[in-house]
C-alpha cells in the first residue's frame, strides 16, 4: 500500500501570494494513499528539508511529492533529502507550483484548483515510481576547449596545470582571439600583446595541451565523462613538422592584395600567411580560396622558395576523433559590422570605422605602426568623434542589451588618441557611462578630467560627408536637447557585441541551449553561470554574452575548476532514467518481436540485437536490448515501439497515462 507524503512550499510569498496553500494541503491530505500532507514557508531550507526527512521516517512514506518550484531548480535538493530520509531518491517527484502556477496566474480560485490538479497528478505518478539505482560510468580525464581566445587559453592552462590532458581547437590559423588585436587594455593601458603572447606560447609548449589550430569541431557525441568529438583539421597545405616558420614563402607570394582579417580589412596579406607576427603556432597556412595555384592551377612560388620543402599542395582536410570527458566552449564574440548603421555611413564612408579597426590603428604592430591616421588619405585626424552604443541598447535594431565593454573601450580609445595626437579634439557621444568595475570609473574620469575628452550626453542622428569632412549631427541632452554639429575628420563607432557567426550551428552540434541573440545559455543565470544545460559542457568568456577581459578570465578559471572537479572522480553516477525492453522472467517471455524499428530512431546507437538460442545453438528469437551506458533516456524508441515492449524509467507508459487521467479527473 502506497503511503505518499505531500510537502507544500510557500516559497516565502512566491507561491502563497496567489495559491491558497492551506487549501491545497487540505485537498492533498484527502487524496487516496496520501498519508501525510504539510505546508512550510521555505521547503528548500534546512528545516524544510528536515521536515521531509523526518516525515519519511515517522509516517513510513513510500513516496514524496514536493510541491514547490520547478524540478529543474530543486529536484536534486529534494531527491537528496529523500535519500537522507532513507527512501530511494527516485521516489521523490516535484509538483511545479511556482513557475507553472503561482507566478503565471492571478490570485483566485482557479489558480488554487490548478495547484491541486498538479499535486494530484504528481501523487498518482509517484505511486508508480520505481526505486532506481544510479548508473556508474567511467570518466575520460581529458578536456576539449573550443576556441583559443583569452578565455579558452585561461581555461586550457588551468585544466592542464591540474594535470589533465587538454585538446584545444581553434578555428583560425592562430590562437589569441580578439584580445590579440587590441592595442592597449583598460583600465591599466598595458599592452595587450605583452600580457597575452606569453600565455599563447605557454599553451603551445605545455606538455598537457594538444593544440589544433585551423580546425573545427564538427560533431560531438556521447555524454558527460564520455564525449567523442569529431574534429576537422582543415588542410594548411603545409607539413608543419618540416616548416621552420622562416617566412620566406610569405614574402615571395605573388598574390598580395587580400584584405587582412587580423587588421580588420585595413591592410593586405598574401595567400600564404600567418595572421600576425606573434601568431601561435607561428606557421603559415595557404588560403585556398585566394591562392593562385588553387584557382588557376599554376604558380607554386612558395613551394619553389621553401628551403625545407614543407609545402604540400595535395594535403586534404583530416577528420579525427578525440575522446574527452568535458568540454569548455570559449568561442568568443564578434561585433556588428557594416550595413547595420546606414545613418552613420559605416561601410560607405572610409573614415567611419569600428572599435576593432581603431584598435588596429592604435596598435604599435598595426597597419600604421601605431599612428592614428585616417584610412581615406592617411592624414592625422584633428577632430575625432566616438559614438558609443552604436546598435546596443536599441530594441528597434533588435539588440536591447548593453554590450558592456564599449563604455570602457571608448574611454580608452579617446585617451589613446589624445596621447598620440596632442593637439586633437576627441568627442564622445554617449547614452550613459557604465563603468562598473575595479578602477573603471576612475579611468573614465581620467579621460574626461586629465585628457580633456569632450563627453556629450546624447545620440547622433546622422553622419555624412561634406568637403572631405564628416559632419556629425547629434543632440546634447544635458543642454536641454540642444542640437550639436561637429565637423570631424574621423568617426569611431562602438558597435554592439554580438554572437559569433556560426554560434547557432555550433550550439546545435554540441546540443547546448542558446538565447534569442545566439549567445550560449548558462544553466542558471545566477547559480550556474558556467554550466550549460548539457552536463559536462561548460562556458567561458564572451560566447555567453559580451564580457571584458577580467570577466572572461574569471569565468574561464571557473569553468576549469568545474572540469577539474569532474575529473577528480574516477566514476560518475548518472541518472538511471533510461529505456528498457520488457523481460518477464526468461528472455523468451518478452513482448518484443524483434522488428528492430527502434534501432534507426535511437540517436545514440544504444539499441543492440540480442539472440536467444536453443540448447542446440539454433537462434529461436532475437530481441532488442538497450545498452544503459549509451541510452540517454529520450524515449523516442518507447513511443515508436509497436508492441509496447520498451518502457522508459521515470516516464513509463503506466506513469504518463495515469498522469493524464489524474490531471483531468477529480478523485
Amino acid at each position, binding site marked *: 500500500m502506497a503511503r505518499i507524503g505531500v510537502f507544500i512550499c510557500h516559497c516565502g510569498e512566491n507561491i502563497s501570494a496567489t495559491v491558497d496553500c492551506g487549501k491545497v494541503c487540505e485537498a492533498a491530505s484527502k487524496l487516496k494513499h496520501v498519508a501525510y500532507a504539510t505546508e512550510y514557508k521555505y521547503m528548500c531550507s534546512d528545516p524544510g528539508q528536515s521536515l521531509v526527512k523526518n516525515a519519511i521516517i515517522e509516517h513510513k512514506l513510500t513516496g514524496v511529492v514536493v510541491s514547490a518550484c*520547478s*524540478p*529543474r*531548480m530543486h529536484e536534486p535538493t529534494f531527491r537528496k533529502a529523500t535519500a537522507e530520509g532513507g527512501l530511494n531518491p527516485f521516489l521523490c517527484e516535484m509538483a*511545479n507550483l*511556482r*513557475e*507553472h*502556477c503561482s*507566478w*503565471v*496566474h*492571478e490570485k*483566485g480560485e*482557479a*489558480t488554487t*484548483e*490548478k495547484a491541486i*490538479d*498538479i499535486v494530484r*497528478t504528481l501523487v498518482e505518478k509517484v505511486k508508480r515510481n520505481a526505486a532506481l539505482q544510479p548508473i556508474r560510468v567511467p570518466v575520460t580525464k581529458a578536456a576539449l576547449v573550443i576556441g583559443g581566445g583569452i578565455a579558452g587559453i585561461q581555461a586550457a592552462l588551468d585544466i592542464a596545470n591540474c594535470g589533465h590532458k587538454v585538446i584545444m581547437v581553434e578555428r583560425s590559423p592562430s590562437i589569441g582571439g580578439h584580445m590579440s588585436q587590441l592595442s592597449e587594455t583598460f583600465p591599466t593601458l598595458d599592452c595587450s600583446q605583452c600580457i597575452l603572447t606569453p600565455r599563447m606560447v605557454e599553451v603551445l609548449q605545455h606538455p598537457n595541451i594538444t593544440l589544433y589550430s585551423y580546425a573545427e569541431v564538427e560533431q560531438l557525441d556521447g555524454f558527460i565523462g564520455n564525449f567523442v568529438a569529431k574534429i576537422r583539421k582543415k588542410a594548411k597545405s603545409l607539413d608543419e613538422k618540416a616548416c621552420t616558420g622562416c617566412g620566406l614563402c610569405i614574402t615571395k607570394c605573388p598574390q598580395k592584395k587580400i584584405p587582412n582579417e587580423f587588421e580588420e580589412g585595413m591592410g593586405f596579406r598574401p595567400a600564404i600567411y600567418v595572421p600576425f607576427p606573434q601568431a601561435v603556432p607561428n606557421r603559415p597556412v595557404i588560403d585556398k580560396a585566394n591562392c593562385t595555384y588553387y584557382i588557376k592551377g599554376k604558380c607554386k612560388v612558395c613551394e619553389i622558395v621553401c628551403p625545407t620543402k614543407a609545402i604540400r599542395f595535395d594535403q586534404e582536410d583530416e577528420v579525427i576523433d578525440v575522446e574527452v570527458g568535458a568540454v569548455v566552449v570559449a568561442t568568443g564574440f564578434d561585433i556588428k559590422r557594416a550595413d547595420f548603421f546606414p545613418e552613420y555611413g559605416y561601410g560607405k564612408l572610409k573614415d567611419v570605422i569600428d572599435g576593432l579597426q581603431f584598435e588596429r590603428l592604435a596598435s604599435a604592430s598595426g597597419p600604421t605602426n601605431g599612428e592614428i591616421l585616417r584610412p581615406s588619405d592617411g592624414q592625422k585626424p584633428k577632430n575625432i568623434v566616438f559614438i558609443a552604443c552604436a546598435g546596443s541598447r536599441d530594441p528597434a535594431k533588435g539588440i536591447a542589451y548593453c554590450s558592456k565593454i564599449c563604455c570602457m573601450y571608448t574611454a580608452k580609445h579617446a585617451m589613446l588618441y589624445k596621447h598620440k595626437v596632442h593637439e586633437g579634439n576627441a568627442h564622445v557621444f554617449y547614452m550613459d557611462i557604465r563603468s562598473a568595475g575595479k578602477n573603471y570609473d576612475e579611468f573614465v574620469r581620467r579621460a574626461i578630467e586629465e585628457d580633456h575628452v569632450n563627453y556629450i550626453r546624447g545620440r547622433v542622428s546622422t553622419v555624412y560627408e561634406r568637403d572631405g569632412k564628416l559632419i556629425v549631427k547629434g543632440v546634447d541632452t544635458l543642454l536641454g536637447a540642444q542640437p550639436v554639429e561637429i565637423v570631424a575628420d574621423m568617426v569611431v563607432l562602438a558597435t554592439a557585441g554580438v554572437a559569433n557567426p556560426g554560434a547557432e550551428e555550433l*550550439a*546545435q552540434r554540441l*546540443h547546448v*541551449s*542558446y*538565447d*534569442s541573440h545566439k549567445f550560449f*545559455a548558462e544553466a542558471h543565470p545566477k547559480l550556474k553561470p558556467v554550466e550549460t*544545460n*548539457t552536463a559536462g559542457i561548460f562556458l567561458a568568456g564572451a560566447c555567453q554574452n559580451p564580457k571584458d577581459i577580467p570577466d572572461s578570465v574569471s569565468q574561464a578559471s571557473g569553468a576549469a575548476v568545474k572540469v577539474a572537479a569532474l575529473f577528480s572522480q574516477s566514476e560518475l553516477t548518472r541518472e538511471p*532514467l533510461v529505456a528498457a525492453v520488457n523481460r518477464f522472467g526468461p528472455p523468451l517471455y518478452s513482448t518484443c518481436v524483434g522488428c528492430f524499428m527502434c534501432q534507426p*530512431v535511437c*540517436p*545514440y546507437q544504444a539499441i543492440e540485437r540480442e539472440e536467444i538460442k536453443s540448447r542446440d545453438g539454433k537462434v529461436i528469437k532475437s530481441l532488442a536490448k538497450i545498452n544503459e551506458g549509451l541510452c*540517454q*533516456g*529520450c*524515449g*523516442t524508441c*518507447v*513511443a*515508436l515501439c509497436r508492441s509496447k515492449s520498451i518502457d*522508459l524509467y*521515470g*516516464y513509463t*507508459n503506466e506513469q*504518463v*497515462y495515469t*498522469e*493524464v*487521467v489524474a*490531471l*483531468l*479527473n477529480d478523485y
Partner: protein
Amino acid sequence: MSDFEPKVVAFVCNWCTYAGADLTGTSRIKYATNVKIIRFPCTGRIDFMLLLKSFANGADGIIISGCHPNDCHYTSGNFHAKRRWIMFKELMDFMGIDMKRITYSWVSAAEGARWAEVVNTTVARVRELGPYVSYQKMVNTHIEEEVTNE
C-alpha cells in the same frame, strides 16, 4: 457557454518548452489557468495515444510542444515526433477528431513570452469551440446518456 472553462493538457519536452514555461514564470508573464503541463524528456517520447486518452478523459484541447528543429537535446527526438505527428494527424482527422483542438508548436527555453502566447491562443480557440462532448459521445455511450439527460 460563457462560463465554460476548457481543460487543456500540454505535453512538453523537458529541455526546451518545460524550461521555456519556467521562464514564463520567472518573467511573471500571465496566462490562462486552463493549461496543465505534463513533462516528458523529449517530444519523441510522446505516444500520440495519449491524446486520445486525454480526450476520452474530458480534455477539450491539447498542446504538444518541444524544441525547435535542430535544437533537440537528444539530436533528433523532435524530428521523430514531427514525423509521427504528420502520420497520426491524418489518421485522427480521418477518424473525425477535431484537429482545431490540438496545437503542435515549438517553444525554446528562451521563449517565455511565446509559451504564454501559445497557451492563450489555444485556450481562446478551444473556448470558442466549446466542450468536446462529441468525442466522448463517440467513445462512450454512458457519457452520451448523461449529456442528453442534462
